[in-house]
């Protein structure tokens, strides 16, 4: 499996893709740095700013877009250039092909996104800067951001990896899904949050540190439900991807 993971990471980490991802990941960091330089020491307004930044920009926008760009390409590129046969015509169980593909998206996207979220949180939380925040005992907030983003990346990666194998227009599907379902519908219909990766990510974030991310309280579901939802969604789409790989015609 390691050899497939290595090759998948190399495939995904192309220069143009990395530049796009890094630029997107730098957006919240830049905004946080800008705002932290101008905000006062009012912790309430700082907390609101971080919550808005994390939810509105990172979790609702950058997280799904970055994961989409990577995960739809993990099989999509190989289908397009017809190199997938080099892998599927080997004595390797199909789940051992899907797993490294999924992990590659998680590694490449997750590292960048978690770093972006954690640094933005550190910068935005205190005008005195990151080191002081951590020393001040607010490590819990950064851990919460890191773990919630990790859960979001894993869940989105599972969905988009499947999409990349099912359709040659996976990006279009993913964009509609992200903006219509995750962005629009889940914002207005509370019940949809139980079926929304954005809902799971926010709820895990809030559940791990409700003190720092209090303003998110209105938009979350129960913490255990979010954990189970993310795990079940990941498992179901992983299974669907393996099933698809077993049944499809490989060009």
């Amino acid at each position, binding site marked *: 499996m390691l050899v497939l993971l290595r090759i998948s990471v190399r495939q995904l980490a192309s220069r143009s893709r990395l530049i796009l991802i890094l630029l997107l990941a730098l957006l919240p960091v830049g905004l946080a740095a800008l705002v932290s330089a101008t905000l006062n020491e009012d912790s309430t307004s700082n907390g609101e700013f971080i919550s808005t930044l994390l939810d509105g920009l990172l979790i609702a926008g950058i997280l799904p877009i970055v994961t989409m760009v990577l995960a739809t390409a993990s099989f999509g590129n190989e289908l397009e250039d017809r190199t997938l046969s080099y892998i599927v015509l080997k004595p390797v169980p199909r789940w051992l092909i899907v797993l490294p593909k999924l992990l590659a998206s998680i590694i490449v996207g997750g590292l960048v996104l978690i770093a972006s979220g954690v640094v933005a949180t550190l910068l935005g939380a205190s005008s005195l800067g990151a080191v002081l925040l951590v020393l001040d005992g607010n490590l819990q907030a950064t851990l919460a951001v890191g773990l919630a983003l990790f859960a979001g990346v894993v869940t989105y990666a599972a969905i988009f990896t499947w999409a990349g194998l099912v359709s040659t227009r996976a990006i279009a599907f993913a964009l509609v899904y992200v903006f219509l379902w995750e962005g629009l519908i889940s914002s207005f219909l509370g019940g949809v949050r139980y079926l929304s990766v954005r809902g799971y990510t926010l709820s895990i974030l809030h559940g791990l540190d409700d003190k720092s991310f209090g303003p998110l309280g209105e938009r979350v579901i129960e913490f255990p439900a979010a954990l189970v939802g993310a795990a079940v969604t990941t498992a179901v789409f992983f299974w669907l991807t393996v099933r698809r790989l077993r049944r499809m015609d*490989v060009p």
Partner: protein
Amino acid sequence: MTQASHSQEATVIAPPIDVRSVSKWFGNVVAVNDVSLQVNPGITGLLGPNGAGKTTLLHMIAGLAKPSEGEVKLLGEPVRDNPQLYHRVGFMSEHESVYGFLTGREFVELAARLYGLEPLSPPVDRAIELVGLTDVQGRTLSTYSRGMRQRMRLAATLVHDLEVLLLDEPLNGTDPRQRIEFQNLMRKLASEGRTILISSHILEEVELLAGSILLMVSGKLAASGDFHAIRAKLDERPYKVRIVSSDSRAMAAALVRLDAVDSVSIDAEGAVEIMTRNVSDLQRSVPRLAQEQHIRLLRVEPLDESLESVFSYLVER
């Protein structure tokens, strides 16, 4: 049933490649139509013009594509959803794309690792040496010529000890010297008892290599068996050819005197239609006759749709 008949039944060996009533369609397009065939050890050529369905058939034999109907067995086992079978089977597709960021050696090593070979170096060294690319194995595949890429892909296919080898247009992009080396290599592998199925749309490629052929035309298996017998049959087959010229009646009168022509008629549009069993003679005679009679040839075309490809194929030789 006696013990002896039990034992006799057990020793019956299934053909390494067994295709039964296989069809494949994509929407309304039938790519392969009710094909049944068995391939035994040795080299077999899968021959046919472009678009005949060879690649689709090979993909179904390799397990890449699921037949719409029928079944494929390799080495006595169903090929679909049976990854462990690939320990004994190798396939090289006609698509030349590779992981351009890998070196040639890394590409062969990737295959070796996925086959679970241990230790890695001896089989990788041997496979790369077999295709004569030891000197350039450290270069990335994106810098290789088409022929070199093709050979390194072959090395990756041959890195493990296989029993069945499926090759789709393997000689694309190779030069004459590489073709001879390839033919020698295939003969060596076949002499060791392997079953090799090579597809090609070029008669000469298969002629020098395969003792038996499978001829596909328009998705159907048109013929199978000994190469020379099939070729003779093809040459004897009557073909309907339509000739449009500046003077159809004079052309018809001239054509009817040819031994190669079985019958001549003039169709509703005034073109000459002839039946022939000797395409190559006809091919030589028609331009000469037209020149002698001062007739201008406007078009010469085969009429029988199902034979059009075969006709063109033979005429182009």
